[in-house]
């Protein structure tokens, strides 16, 4: 019986333990498994958060024995895990590890995975509960889902975690949804957006809804505008094939940026259940006005300098078309047509090869109506800004006007930073740990729902649709800067500017 329904567990302060289960990783020979999934499992094992009766079944076509797989995963844990390597912890995890080399989708009825899972149930007591993790290329999602559905067993629960991207436009997302829905109910489907697993993103909800002082000012009356930035200083890291098709709009905007927007703008949910939270997020997406071409700026990086090193232009990256029109930068001005936010612009931007890695949400408040210090403050006094740092350094900053020490009444903007030091301090859980654990617990709050994904794609389709009518002049920003000049114009037209850096 799960601990949640155990009356004795009440008041013990013990976190819910997931049911016994087997985690089946499709794409177990790939990069994600090695860099994120197995290190996350190790971190969970390290903290005793995995169910006692647990197994990991890795599936991929690459031939290798379980022994080899385990040995590779040991190396991966040593390299990528956030905790020190402990043989006893890894061995407990490794005891339940199996690798099945098969083309799952085309195994001519020879269900090697099913057989292994039966064995695992018998040996490890995993009770027929299955958490399927689709860490395969997106093209393989539909067929793997179909096979899973067809082979679904009666006993135990079955859930499926689907990696991003979920489709590459509205039509393909709907198609994939239909394929998934045929075999799995919505509460069995966990669409990953790993941003939602980040501590600070959850902290944003805590900040907004656990503090009486923020909600009353979180609206059009007091907020001048909101800026959300997802900036990366890295290039495409050899992923030309994927990036050429995706661009920043599919890689970052459709999922991470829109998620951050929804969490910033949503109404307080009635509780923190998956549906209550997601209902509110969907409402925000539905209230979003489709931006016209004048509200969208795309760009692509040219050569430049990053941290004292020269870097090549996007079109010079290996595997990229020398005349590529793929955007590596995007800035969009959005409006949410509801009572809270009418006429308050949300400026979103994301890009590669920008000056630094930074994900932030900046709530810029309106200026004080009549500062009596006007003459002396000069431009030393800026409007108040509440800045939520999502990465790399997690925390919250508040820009306030304060008096300069000494004689006179000189006012200056002071930044008060509350820094959690997340990325630079050990001990903050990786997003995947939280997400895998939640999926085992059946809690979908931090996953994207079908209607949410659809709303996101509608917006993306509208923006991309307009692009087919014009021919951008790329490259239009130097690597290492803050994006194209046109993106600055987007705000200057409104008498605003991007947060300075």
């Amino acid at each position: 019986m799960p601990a949640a329904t155990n009356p004795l567990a009440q008041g013990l302060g013990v976190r819910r333990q997931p049911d016994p289960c087997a985690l089946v990783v499709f794409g177990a020979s790939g990069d994600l498994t090695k860099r994120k999934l197995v290190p996350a499992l190790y971190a969970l094992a390290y903290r005793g958060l995995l169910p006692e009766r647990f197994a990991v079944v890795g599936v991929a076509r690459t031939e290798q024995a379980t022994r080899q797989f385990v040995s590779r995963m040991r190396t991966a844990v040593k390299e990528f895990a956030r905790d020190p390597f402990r043989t006893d912890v890894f061995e407990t995890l490794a005891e339940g590890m199996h690798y099945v080399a098969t083309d799952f989708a085309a195994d001519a009825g020879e269900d090697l995975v099913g057989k292994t899972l039966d064995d695992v149930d018998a040996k490890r007591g995993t009770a027929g509960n299955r958490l399927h993790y689709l860490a395969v290329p997106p093209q393989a999602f539909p067929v793997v889902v179909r096979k899973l559905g067809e082979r679904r067993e009666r006993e135990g629960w079955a859930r499926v975690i689907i990696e991003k991207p979920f489709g590459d436009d509205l039509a393909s997302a709907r198609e994939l949804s239909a394929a998934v829905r045929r075999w799995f109910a919505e509460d069995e489907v966990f669409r990953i957006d790993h941003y939602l697993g980040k501590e600070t993103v959850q902290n944003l909800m805590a900040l907004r809804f656990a503090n009486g002082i923020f909600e009353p000012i979180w609206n059009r009356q007091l907020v001048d505008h909101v800026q959300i930035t997802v900036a990366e200083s890295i290039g495409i890291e050899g992923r030309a094939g994927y990036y050429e098709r995706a661009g920043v709009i599919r890689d970052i905007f459709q999922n991470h940026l829109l998620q951050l927007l929804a969490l910033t703008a949503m109404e307080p949910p009635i509780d923190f259940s998956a549906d209550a939270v997601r209902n509110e997020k969907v409402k925000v997406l539905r209230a979003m006005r489709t931006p016209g071409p004048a509200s969208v700026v795309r760009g692509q990086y040219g050569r430049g300098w990053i941290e004292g090193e020269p870097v090549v232009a996007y079109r010079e990256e290996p595997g990229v078309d020398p005349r590529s029109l793929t955007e590596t930068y995007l800035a969009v001005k959005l409006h949410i047509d509801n009572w809270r936010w009418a006429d308050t612009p949300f400026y979103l931007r994301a890009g590669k090869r920008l000056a630094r890695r930074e994900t932030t949400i900046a709530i810029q408040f309106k200026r004080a109506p009549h500062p009596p210090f006007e003459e002396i403050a000069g431009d030393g006094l800026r409007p108040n800004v509440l800045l939520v740092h999502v990465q790399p350094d997690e925390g919250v900053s508040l820009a306030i006007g304060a008096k300069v020490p000494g004689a006179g009444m000189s006012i200056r903007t002071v930044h008060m930073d509350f820094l959690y030091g997340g990325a630079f301090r050990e001990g903050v859980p990786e997003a995947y740990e939280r997400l895998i654990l939640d999926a085992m617990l059946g809690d979908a709050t931090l996953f994207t729902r079908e209607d949410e994904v659809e709303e996101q794609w509608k917006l993306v389709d509208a923006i991309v649709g307009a692009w087919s009518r014009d021919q951008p002049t790329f490259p239009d920003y130097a690597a290492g800067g803050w994006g194209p000049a046109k993106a600055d114009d987007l705000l200057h037209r409104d008498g605003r500017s991007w947060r300075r850096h």
Partner: protein
Amino acid sequence: MGVVAEVERKLAQQRCRQEDDGVPELRASTITDVVWAPPRWLPQARRVLAGLAERNPARTIFLVPLPGRGTGVEADAVVYDFEIGDGREVLSEVIELRLRGEAARHPASVVLPLLISDLPAFCRWRGRPDWDGSALQEIVEVCDRLVVDSSEWRGLPAAYGELAGLFEGIVVSDIAWRRTLPWRVALADRWPQIRKVDRLAVEGPRADALLLTGWLRSRLRRDVALTHRSAATISRVRVDGDTVAPPRQRSLSDSGLLSAELDTLTRDPVYEAAVRSTGA
């Protein structure tokens, strides 16, 4: 790990060490203070820093150009605890970046990621800038204010012509100019007689003498000749042979002078006109 991540990590680790109660730590800052400090200027630049902390809690980034020696960027980062009296202390982050080879020509690519967002960035440029160099151009683009001390330069007054070329791109201020303030007050006291001044004689740094003369020329719209004798600080000023009583105001320390410059954020038209009238 890139150099920027390395710096942030070092700073975060040191901040954590000072906060072992798990409470997120608080950092207050008003500016990012960038210091372009070629090796021979570095010790002096470091000394000035200590006096700045109270009025201007800042992140300081020393850029030490080492052109021609290897390539790449090396970084040190330290969180300093400056005692400011009454048992109070100010935490200040100090980053030192050694820019080797080509990196010395492209400082913006390391400075930009390390600026504290939303706050003004000042660059104190030690020594005389290479006016046509890409380093100066990049700094002008990413910082809001350039602070120089023209008494550190040779080749005056010609260099003022180069400096004036920057006025449209960045707010410039000059510590030499700030140093002349008490003397400007004293000279202003001589109004209206001073209206007819023909010759100013200054014993002091050449920069200070040129700026004072430029100031009189531009304010009075008059051709004022300069007689100059070198001295470490302005010790004597004469107007058409008549000695000006030394100002009572005590002159500020190096840190005090810089700190005063950091308080102002907007262009100073009086200074700009004075520079333009130095005879460059």
